[in-house]
């Protein structure tokens, strides 16, 4: 079946603008994760959704970052008033309930000018 998909693949924006990044998880996967990969650094956890439970937002770096997951499927990560330090690759992953392995999408490369 289809893997995790993300859109757009690339996004260039100006400092101060808002951006929305989309993730479509693998069908049937109840858990969805957002990570950020900055140049020269590893992957940084941002937020995690599991079914109807309250999301784990412990990794969000500031209140400019938010995410929602509608209908237990598609998720949108929103960054308000973007800053140059927000430039990174944003990766989404999903997993089945009770399964440990997370499967990653191709990422969205965000560049803030």
């Amino acid at each position, binding site marked *: 079946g289809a893997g995790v998909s993300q859109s757009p693949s690339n996004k260039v924006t100006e400092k101060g603008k808002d951006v929305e990044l989309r993730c479509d998880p693998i069908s049937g996967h109840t*858990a969805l994760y957002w990570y950020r990969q900055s140049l020269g650094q590893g992957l940084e956890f941002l937020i995690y959704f599991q079914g109807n439970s309250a999301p784990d937002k412990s*990794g969000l770096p500031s209140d400019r970052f938010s995410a929602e997951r509608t209908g237990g499927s598609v998720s949108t990560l929103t960054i308000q008033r973007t800053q140059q330090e927000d430039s990174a690759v944003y*990766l989404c992953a999903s997993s089945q309930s009770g399964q440990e392995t*997370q499967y*990653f999408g191709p990422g969205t490369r965000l560049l803030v000018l």
Partner: protein
Amino acid sequence: AQSVAQPEDQVNVAEGNPLTVKCTYSVSGNPYLFWYVQYPNRGLQFLLKYITGDNLVKGSYGFEAEFNKSQTSFHLKKPSALVSDSALYFCAVRDMEKSSGDKLTFGTGTRLAVRP
């Protein structure tokens, strides 16, 4: 808190030679351990994982990893490297303690370069 260390930024090896990419971890409880590979401009691909059981885990593309609890290590190995194995490799850990959540903590990555 959970953490992962990949002490080598880059590993260079000749094609046909064995390779090892090192990883050590720290968790409060027992670990779930993972290796992922990232090719240029691609997402992460799952290679293998250790959950429980046999300490030697076999995964995709001929890779394997050995869980060593006393040394808190999970080194990635392959008996004979291929040029096509050249990529960025990430080790990740998740604490089995539910209070830690289900998120993965990743190392900073090790770039593997296999020369012909």
